[in-house]
């Protein structure tokens, strides 16, 4: 069994980071993982995306034409990638910045106002963690317990923001239910 998740949004939204946290969590649960960034001549405010591959077998191609899931944090990302998601995948839509749907009836849409939720918690920067938590809660790719552990680990050097991110996790999980 192999799942691939594409995370996409603006540079600065913490897209690569949430991809990395998911990869870490899956590794902790014993899966084979690969995290593949889009790297190229990027600019501030441009698009950023990465793909996380999670498998119970050694991972072959790191190049994924059709990922199973998509986490879209801004409108250009949804417009660009919603058509490549495989049927029955989950498409997370950050409705705070995306006023449209995926236009697909063969995927499961998960609408989360990630920016609003994070702003209410006191810091818009946590929108990525809200989205990640909601996505994990919906797909069950890893347990939310492992996810919590890995988020704590990721921010271990910035203890001041751990509380905020733990709250963001809880709210994300709630948004998915």
């Amino acid at each position, binding site marked *: 069994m192999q799942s691939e998740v594409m995370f996409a949004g603006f540079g600065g939204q913490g897209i690569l980071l949430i991809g990395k946290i998911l990869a870490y969590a899956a590794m902790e649960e014993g899966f084979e*993982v*690969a995290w*593949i960034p889009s790297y*190229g001549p990027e600019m501030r405010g441009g698009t950023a995306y990465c793909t996380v591959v999670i498998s119970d077998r050694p991972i072959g191609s*790191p*190049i994924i*034409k059709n990922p199973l899931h998509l986490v879209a944090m801004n409108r250009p990302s949804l417009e660009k990638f919603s058509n490549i998601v495989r049927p029955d995948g989950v498409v997370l839509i950050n409705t705070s910045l995306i006023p449209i749907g995926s236009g697909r009836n063969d995927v499961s849409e998960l609408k989360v106002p990630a920016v609003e939720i994070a702003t209410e918690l006191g810091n818009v920067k946590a929108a990525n963690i809200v989205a990640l938590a909601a996505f994990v809660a919906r797909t069950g790719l890893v347990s939310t317990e492992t996810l919590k552990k890995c988020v704590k680990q990721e921010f271990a050097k910035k203890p001041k923001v751990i509380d905020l991110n733990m709250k963001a996790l809880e709210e994300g999980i709630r948004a998915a239910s």
Partner: protein
Amino acid sequence: MAKVLMKGNEAIAEAAIRAGCLNYFAYPITPQSEVAEYLCWRMPEVNGVFLQGESEVAVAYMIFGAAAAGARVFTTSSSPGISLMSEGISYLAGAQCPAVFVNIMRGGPGLGGILPSQADYLQATKGIGHGDCRMLVMAPATVQEAAEMVMKAFPLAEKYRNPVMILGDGLIGQMMEPVEFPDDLKSEPTNKDEWATNGMDHRKSKTRNLVRSLFLDPVVLNNNNLVLKEKYEKMKDEILFESYNTEKDYRILIVSYGTMSRVCRTAVDMLADEGIHVGLIRPQTLFPFPEEAICKAVTSSGCKLVLSIEMSMGQMLEDVQRSVLGACPVEWYGKCGGEVPTPEEIIDLIKARMASL
């Protein structure tokens, strides 16, 4: 040590430290700059040295200096940077000094692009420097393998008293995968008294070590190069490759290395699910090349076609043709602008070629 998630570039950096290499000289270039980023804080932790040279030309001679003094030393760069180091690499080979060079390839020629490529195959395996200069070249396909090859490269460079290259593509450098390091591998070159200018006091032999690649007497130069030739031949002991699905009856054999080989492996798996068997050989050493293994895979099967699939315009192709010795046709497939072909593309290619066999 437990598994950690690391970029290939970071794993290469850490692997060098685990191998006891405390000298890193480099000049930044995409897509391998994370090696320098990592080592600029990590080297001081282990009392090592990271010095950024003023250019890749300078870096190659910093490497030469450290190697001549008997220190473990390495550098990392990407395609245009390796071209600039080429002169120094030839001097190292001529003077028989060991060092490790990592090339995380990007597209070319010229400045090319910054996305993954395998277009420096011929440079690495056949034209890394002027003169009768060759180097052992290893090509990793995973982050774990990149780390392992770096750790192996230092003792091999010392064994042969010759530069060794790790040839990865941009994706190997940029991708994160779990990697596990041995706890402690730290060691010193055991044979450095053979070449190092490290003083005479502790040495039993009282012959001077001279670090030089200038031999104006043609007989002496010829003899020196015969010594090099013998070493290049002996490097065949280090040939490594991986066979995949070759126990099956196949009519097409793929030869592919690095990231490209992983894509091919997925294509082989997907085709096997449809009942179509394709063999795959992945060279892990590119020089020396696993020619006998490829020849055997062709002659001992019903193989009718060999495909050299690479992210270049068909460079390894020549080595594959040489290995097959005309036993069956060898064709090239690939891309080299920075896009990595997908498994679906490879499957379409195989099916189209199957139909015409």
